[in-house]
């Protein structure tokens, strides 16, 4: 459960932090929002993390004349660099890296098909369909005698 101390604007800032930390031109906003919401859920159960989050988001907003969400991509990245290694950013990144890349929408965008058991595995679905290299041998001589 997200805390009442986090405003809608804080959430937008956090989504922007996740976008800036993990920039993919092919990703829509949904996966970033879901990753940010997991961060908020975790912070909701961890007062120390929540305190760091409130403080950290506030500080990011104060770095330039305009709020973090209004910075252009390069400036946002530079501002975030400045927070690298802080407990706040480390905790956000550690959480988001897990959620973002466990998101089925992201998997599809990256070309990962994920769970396969219910579909009979990949045995008939391309586990050996690479055709831009010759078929290699799969044994070597010494083995035959072993």
């Amino acid at each position, binding site marked *: 459960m997200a805390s009442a101390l986090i405003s809608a604007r804080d959430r937008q800032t956090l989504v922007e932090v996740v976008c800036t930390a993990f920039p993919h031109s092919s990703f829509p906003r949904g996966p970033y929002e879901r990753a940010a919401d997991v961060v908020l859920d975790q912070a909701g159960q961890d007062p120390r993390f929540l305190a760091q989050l409130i403080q950290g988001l506030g500080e990011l907003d104060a770095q330039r004349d305009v709020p973090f969400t209004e910075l252009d991509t390069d400036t946002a990245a530079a501002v975030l660099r400045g927070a690298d290694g802080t407990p706040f950013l480390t905790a956000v990144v550690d959480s988001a890296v897990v959620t973002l890349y466990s998101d089925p929408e992201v998997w599809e965008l*990256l070309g990962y*098909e994920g769970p*396969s058991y219910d579909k*009979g595995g990949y045995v008939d679905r391309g586990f050996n369909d690479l055709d831009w290299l010759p078929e290699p*041998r*799969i044994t070597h001589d010494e*083995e035959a005698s072993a």
Partner: protein
Amino acid sequence: MTRFDYDDGDVVVVVGSGAGGGTVANELCQRGFKTVVLEAGPHLTGEDYVQDEWEAFGQMAWTDPRTTSGSWQVATDFPELPAWIVKAVGGTTTHWAGACPRFKAHELAARSTYGDIDGANLLDWPIALSELEPYYDKAEIKMGVTHRHGRPPLPANNNYKVFANGAEKVGYRYYSTGPYATNAEPYDGRPATVQDGFNFQGDKHGSKWSTLVAELPKAERTGNLDLRPDSHAAQILHDATGRATGVLYVDRNGTLRRQRAAVVCVAGNSIETPRLLLLSGSAQHPDGLANSSGQVGRNYMRHTTGTVWGQFDRPVHMYRGETMAGVIADESRLDTDRGFVGGYYMETIALGPAFLAKFVAPGKWGSQLTELLDGYRNTAGMWIVGEDMPQADNRITLNSDVTDAHQLPVADVHFDDHANDVAMRRHGQRQGAAVYQAVGSRRTIETPPYPSTHNLGTCRMSQRPRDGVVDRFGRAHDVPNLFISDGSVFTTGAAANPTLTIVALATRQAEYIATELTKTL
């Protein structure tokens, strides 16, 4: 389901149900010995497993607290997770990939072969390859290892095609899809792989050998196995004559139980095994049970490892099929002219985006990371695994400042890379990159070591009691009815992935215990 009495002093108690514990238990059950297996983790089976990297990790991995120290990068990247091992019935054989190379003869005589290496605490094993060979045969047959004893090889998957073509181009000769303990065709009542790609996540299909699907069910059928999941061994008890008398453990309800025993076999993997011995100190054994040598917990090895990823212009889809199914053995040769002693293997590996993002550059973020992931579809991967040097101060100790859920002090894992390890890793990563460049990779990426998957050496085997903890059969030098049955007994680590050797040694040990017990009972 069989149950033996807590006060039945005739049973053999085995701590841990992984490669070592599950094997020694089954071998004893087959010979008619009453066996109680205490397993700290839950009894998960194929249906429970999930094909999602993090969810499966949360379900299976040992995440009880541990601490780290030393200069190894894992202490920085994963300070609370020094090792990647399983806490569940079947132990880490439910996670493992199945690569099964044997030791080479000279690797059992590392001190004699490599000489006196500065800072290394090398010692020859008290056994030679010729003594192990019959047990390697037994273990390979038991596990259905491909390429051996008539078992067919696994087919080439996409990741292997890149790897093998690169190997050929750089002039390597010894590349193949095995040996792996995963069925290419049905064997021993287990099906052929469906190449579902979630081998690290328990292998729902059961085509991979694990003690969960092979040894323990067989042991169960004898009626001699009393398997107790959710049972955490807290202390080994002994009497005034110095013999082990039983094991205290915390059961699933949090109650401390005492199981009496004729023999105790410890196989908790190389961090928990020495921890349990150190926790079992007494007036008679002030530095921990079976530790008159001071070697319990020392000489901790984890293999020299690293990962190389190659990214190409065209798709690879490395995640389709067996997680690991390719080996290049050329660099495992004895050749001390490469700037290091010992050898290494290159083995294919595939991770999903979730693990790749976490492990490729731990803690890093930004466009460098995301560009790598954007190339996921076209990525091939290999893991490097080689012999590391045992060092006396690389060790497991009790960290009394941190306790687990049972108030037991946790293990601290201290590790410093040896210069030899660093040189080998650099060589391996260079060679790995060359393999991918030979088939046109646009870029190669080197990943630092993961939390240790191979944990070895902390109760090492030695001829003389003062050099190690156990004898040539894994029997504690100090306690005649206490055996260590896991990779802790490795005197040195060799280049080979360890599990085949753990299973061979456990099989040999069970035979020995059976002979000895028959004499005394």
